[in-house]
């Protein structure tokens, strides 16, 4: 139990997926203009990464590993993730329309979110079992949610500020990310 807690806190705060591992930078910069869309994107990522880390964990343990096909992991994982995102989208559309309306538009974007593939590959690299893998997935995606929501909150305030011409748009967002990354460095003493 203690070990699982350390994995969760470590992946959510200490090694934050966006601010220290640079995975999922693209949605982090692209979909963080408003707090509610950012929260939607973050929610969709939590949902997909949790399922993806479970499914890729199962497939690696029961199909790839016994057959000696470990070297196919990159190809297999990316196809699983692409198919899974599609499947989740269809399922939500039929079974849970309110959730689909909240997350739907963000789901297709997640296929190319490198954080999803990154989590699947890290789970294999660190030799996590399936439970640890899922916890790591949840931790990582919650870290993403935290980062993107904070970023969106700051960006809504930045809108009212007078920023020099060259720094408008992406540069000021990156400067904000710099300061957030410095703040998150403070968590490194946590575990």
């Amino acid at each position: 139990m203690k070990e699982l807690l350390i994995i969760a806190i470590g992946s959510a705060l200490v090694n934050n997926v966006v601010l220290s591992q640079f995975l999922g930078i693209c949605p982090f910069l692209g979909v963080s203009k408003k707090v509610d869309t950012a929260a939607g994107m973050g929610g969709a990522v939590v949902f997909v990464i949790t399922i993806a880390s479970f499914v890729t964990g199962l497939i690696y343990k029961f199909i790839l590993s016994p057959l000696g096909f470990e070297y196919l992991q990159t190809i297999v994982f990316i196809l699983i993730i692409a198919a899974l995102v599609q499947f989740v989208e269809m399922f939500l559309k039929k079974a849970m329309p309110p959730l689909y309306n909240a997350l739907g538009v963000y789901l297709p974007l997640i296929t190319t979110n490198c954080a999803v593939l990154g989590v699947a590959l890290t789970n294999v690299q660190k030799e996590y079992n399936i439970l640890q893998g899922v916890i790591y997935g949840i931790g990582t995606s919650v870290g993403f949610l935290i980062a993107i929501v904070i970023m969106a909150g700051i960006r809504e305030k930045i809108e009212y500020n007078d920023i020099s011409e060259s720094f408008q748009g992406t540069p000021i967002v990156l400067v904000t990310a710099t300061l957030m990354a410095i703040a998150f460095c403070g968590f490194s003493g946590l575990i």
Partner: protein
Amino acid sequence: MNNCTERIYNGLVKENPTFVLMLGMCPTLAVTTSAVNGVGMGLSTTVVLVLSNMLISMLRKIIPDSVRMPAFIVVVASFVTIVQFLLEGFVPSLYDSLGLYIPLIVVNCIILGRAESYASKNPVLPSIFDGIGMGLGFTVGLTAIGIVREFIGTGAVFGQQILPLADAAAGKGGYVPVTIFILPPGAFLVLAFLVALQNKVKNNAAKKGKKVPESAGCGEGCASCGNSACGGKVFPTGNEK
């Protein structure tokens, strides 16, 4: 042959993936802690880009339009796996320092973007040169950022100490490295100034009435890339109507 040199010029200067199009930001930020890592990542990406452009261009008349994205992904993922094993076998030190980011070349927007926008529509030879041009452009971009970060962060370039370091214990004056530049925040900071510089150049050019190429991708976030080139079309969702 003229067309081929034009492709290389296009990739290196006119549509440089790092400085102009702002594609592939994840590896750009993550691996540029030193110039050597930048070169290694850039060249690995180049190899994958050239090979996948070549194969996709060869297969462009065979792959049905509706499944082209999954087909491209399989092609790219296969070459990435090959490159990963070659690096592990022959350059283990680079393999260790790039780590997770080698398999993540698969989801690099540059590669799928070029496959979609160039290789799937053009003959084999220009596609190969397009891959070489874009790959070298990416390598130059990563190396430049790597040199800046390594120089400010450690006072060295390519592992060679340029500025003599200060040694407080020996009472020797010298350069005090700004370590934060080789830590994650430094990556964001260097990129912020880079994009600001690019905006400055673009604004000046726009004032003079020159046309400037639009940044196509991750500058505004892969959201746009995800929509057009990669995610949105991996499998047809039926939502497009």
